[in-house]
C-alpha cells in the first residue's frame, strides 16, 4: 500500500487539472469496478455492487485534486509571478519547489524584506524556473504547478506534499479491493476541485443521488508542541468526524461508524475540527439532503509541503471502511 501511496502523492494534479492523477487512479480501479465513468466535472466514479433489499446506495468521496499555484505573469527576466489554487499559505512557500504539469521545475523566491522576521506575502514572491526571459521560460501565464517534495517513508510515519487527500484516495482504492461482496450499492468517487469549494462532490452527489454520503479526507491534530487544541493525534486510529467548520455530521451515521469500529476492535477517534471542511459538506445538502459524514486520516502540517500521517491510521481506516460498507447499515 505504501507503493500505491507513493505513486499517488507524487503525481501532479492541482484542482481543475486532475487528468493525470485520474488516469493513475483509473489504472488501479478499472479491474475492480462493476461500472466506471467520468462526469462533467472530471470525477472518476466507480460503482461496485447493486442495492439489495436491506442495502443502501452509498457514495464515498476522496478528492484527487491538490493545492497548487498558477502563473499570472512572466517578467522580462523570466521570473514567474503566481497566484494560488486552494488553501496555500504564504509561510509554506518561500524556498519551496514546485513542479509544473509539463514537468518543468521551479523554486519559490521572494523580494528582499525590510524586516527579515516577516513572512513574504504572495505578491512579494515569484517562481524561478531557471529562465532568463519569457522566451526561454518553460512556463507561461496560466500554467499550473503543485508543490514538489519526495515521498518519505519513516516506517510508521509517512510524509508527502499531497497526503491531502491522496492518502485517502489510497484508502478508498484498498477498500474497494478488500470488499468482496456487499448488500450495498457502493459508489467510490475520486472527486475533483475539493480544494476550491467541494465542487466535484457537489455534482457527483447530484448525479448518483445516494442514500448516504461519506467523505474520506485528512483532518488536523492537536499532538504537536503548543499546537491546536484538538483531541485527535497520529497513531490513535482513523477519526470519525462529528463536526468541522463546514458541517455537522449526521449523528446516526457517527454512531453507526463508532459502533462498527468498536465491534471490530478497530481503534478510532472522535473528531471536532475547528477549521476546514470536506466533500461531506457538499453531499449533505445535495438534492433533498442526505445523512453525511466523514472518516478522516489524522494529518500533521496540512497544506504544507510536508504533510505527515501514521501508516497504522491509514490501514485502520481501510479496515473500518471495509467492515462498515460490507454490512447492512441502520441509521
Amino acid at each position, binding site marked *: 500500500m505504501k507503493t500505491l501511496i507513493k505513486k499517488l502523492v507524487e503525481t501532479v494534479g492541482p484542482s481543475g487539472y486532475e487528468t493525470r492523477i485520474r488516469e493513475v487512479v483509473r489504472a488501479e480501479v478499472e479491474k475492480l469496478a462493476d461500472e466506471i465513468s467520468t462526469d462533467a466535472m472530471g470525477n472518476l466514479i466507480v460503482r461496485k455492487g447493486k442495492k439489495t433489499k436491506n442495502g443502501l446506495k452509498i457514495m464515498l468521496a476522496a478528492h484527487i485534486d491538490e493545492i497548487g499555484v498558477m502563473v499570472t505573469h512572466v517578467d522580462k527576466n523570466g521570473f514567474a509571478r503566481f497566484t494560488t489554487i486552494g488553501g496555500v499559505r504564504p509561510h509554506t512557500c518561500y524556498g519551496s519547489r514546485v513542479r509544473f504539469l509539463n514537468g518543468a521545475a521551479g523554486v519559490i523566491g521572494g523580494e528582499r524584506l525590510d524586516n527579515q522576521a516577516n513572512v513574504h506575502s504572495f505578491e512579494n514572491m515569484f517562481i524561478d524556473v531557471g529562465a532568463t526571459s519569457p522566451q526561454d521560460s518553460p512556463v507561461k501565464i496560466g500554467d499550473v504547478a503543485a508543490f514538489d517534495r519526495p515521498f518519505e517513508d519513516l516506517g510508521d510515519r509517512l510524509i508527502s506534499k499531497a497526503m491531502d487527500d491522496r492518502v485517502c484516495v489510497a484508502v478508498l482504492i484498498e477498500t474497494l479491493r478488500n470488499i468482496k461482496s456487499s448488500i450495498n450499492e457502493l459508489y467510490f468517487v475520486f472527486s475533483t476541485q475539493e480544494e476550491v469549494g467541494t465542487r466535484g462532490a457537489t455534482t457527483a452527489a447530484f448525479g448518483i443521488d445516494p442514500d448516504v454520503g461519506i467523505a474520506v479526507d485528512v483532518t488536523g491534530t492537536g499532538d504537536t508542541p503548543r499546537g491546536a487544541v484538538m483531541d485527535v493525534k497520529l497513531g490513535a486510529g482513523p477519526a470519525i468526524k462529528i463536526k468541522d467548520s463546514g458541517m*455537522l455530521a449526521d*449523528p446516526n451515521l457517527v454512531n453507526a461508524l463508532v459502533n462498527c469500529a468498536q465491534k471490530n476492535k478497530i481503534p478510532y477517534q*472522535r473528531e471536532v475540527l475547528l477549521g476546514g471542511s470536506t466533500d461531506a459538506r457538499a453531499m449533505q445538502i445535495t438534492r433533498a439532503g442526505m445523512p453525511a459524514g466523514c472518516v478522516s486520516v489524522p494529518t500533521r502540517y496540512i497544506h504544507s509541503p510536508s504533510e505527515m500521517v501514521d501508516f497504522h491510521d491509514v490501514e485502520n481506516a481501510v479496515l473500518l471502511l471495509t467492515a462498515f460498507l460490507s454490512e447492512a447499515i441502520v441509521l
Partner: protein
Amino acid sequence: MIELKEMLKSMISLPGLSGYEKPIRELITTSWEPLVDEISTSRLGSLHALRRGNGALPRPAILLAAHMDAIGLMVTSITDGLLRFTGIGGIDPRILPGQLVTIHGRNDMPGVIVQPPDYLLPSSQHRKSIAMEYLFVDTGLMADQVKQLVRVGDLISFRQEPMELKGNTLAGHSLDNRASVAAVTQCLLELSHLQHAWDVWAVATVQEEVTLAGSITSPYEIKPQIAVAIDVTFAKGPGANDWRTLSLAKGPCLGWGPNIHPYIYKRFAETAEKLDIPFQKELMPRHSGTDAYGMQVVGAGIPTIVISIPLRYMHTPVELIAMKDIERTGRLLAETIARLEPDFLDKINWDEVEDEEK
C-alpha cells in the same frame, strides 16, 4: 387547544441544537399533528407538515419555513476534568462566563461556564472578555468520573429557564427561532377556521444556524410555488437603534431587498393594511441571514419573502420577544394565505412593483 405562550415556553425549555434537533422536532410534531393532514421528517431531520388547500388540482403550495435548531456548544477536549468547547452557530464568547449549561453526555448533567483568573491567561487576554478557547465547563465531577460520562463531540446547551417578563414579553434561550415556530403554529390554528385554496407546507427546518442546510434541501423535496422564511430580527434596545433594528411589539417585519420577491411583499403588506395588522419594513440589502437565502435559489428558483419577529439580545440565553408580535405574525400569514387565489402565481411579476415609501 394550544395555548401559544405555554407551547413556546415548552419549546425553549428543550435543547435541539443544530444537527441534533430530535427533542424539539418531537414536541413540534405533537403540536402540529392535529392541525395538518400529513406530517413527515426529511432525511436531514426537517419536519414537513402539509395542510391541504381546497383549490383544484394541481394545487399550488406555499412553504412556511421556521428553523427549529438552536445555537449551543460542543465539547472539543477534556483537560483535568474540565471541558473545553467550541460553538455550534454564532456564539458570542463575551456572554458565556457564568452561564448555567446542561452537558448532554451519557446522561444529562448540569455545569457552569468558567474562565481562569486573569493572571493565568496569556497577556493577549488580560483585562478583556476572553476568547472561547480559554473557557471551560465545570461539572463538579472528578477528572476520572468526567472521562466516564463525557466524550469529545458531546453537546452543551443553555439551561436558562423561560422567564415571563412584564408587558406580555418572554425571555429565554432559543427564542431564535422557536418564536417563529410558535408563529407558524398560530398560523395553522387560524387556518383551521379559514378557507384556503393553496396547500400549506409548515416546515420546521434544521441547521439554519450553521449551513442553512434545511432550507436548501426541504424546498427541493416539496417544490413549493412560494416560500416564506419566518425568523427573528434585531429589535431596538440599548445601543441598538439604527436602520438595522426594528421596534419590539410594533408588529411583524416584512423583509425588503434582493432576497425578497417584491410582489410577495406587496401581497403581505396589502393584507396587513386591510386588517389593520401593524407591520414594519425591514431592509435587507445583502444576505438576509435567514432560510430565505437558501430557499430562493433551490431548483429553478422560488419567489421568497422573509417575515421577522423583533427580538432583543439575539444569540444570548436571555433573548426577549413580545408575544403580541408572534400572534400577529401568525395571523398575517394565515390571512394572506387564505387570500391567495388559485391563479395568484400567474399575476406575480418582479418588475411591476415599485418601492414606494409611504
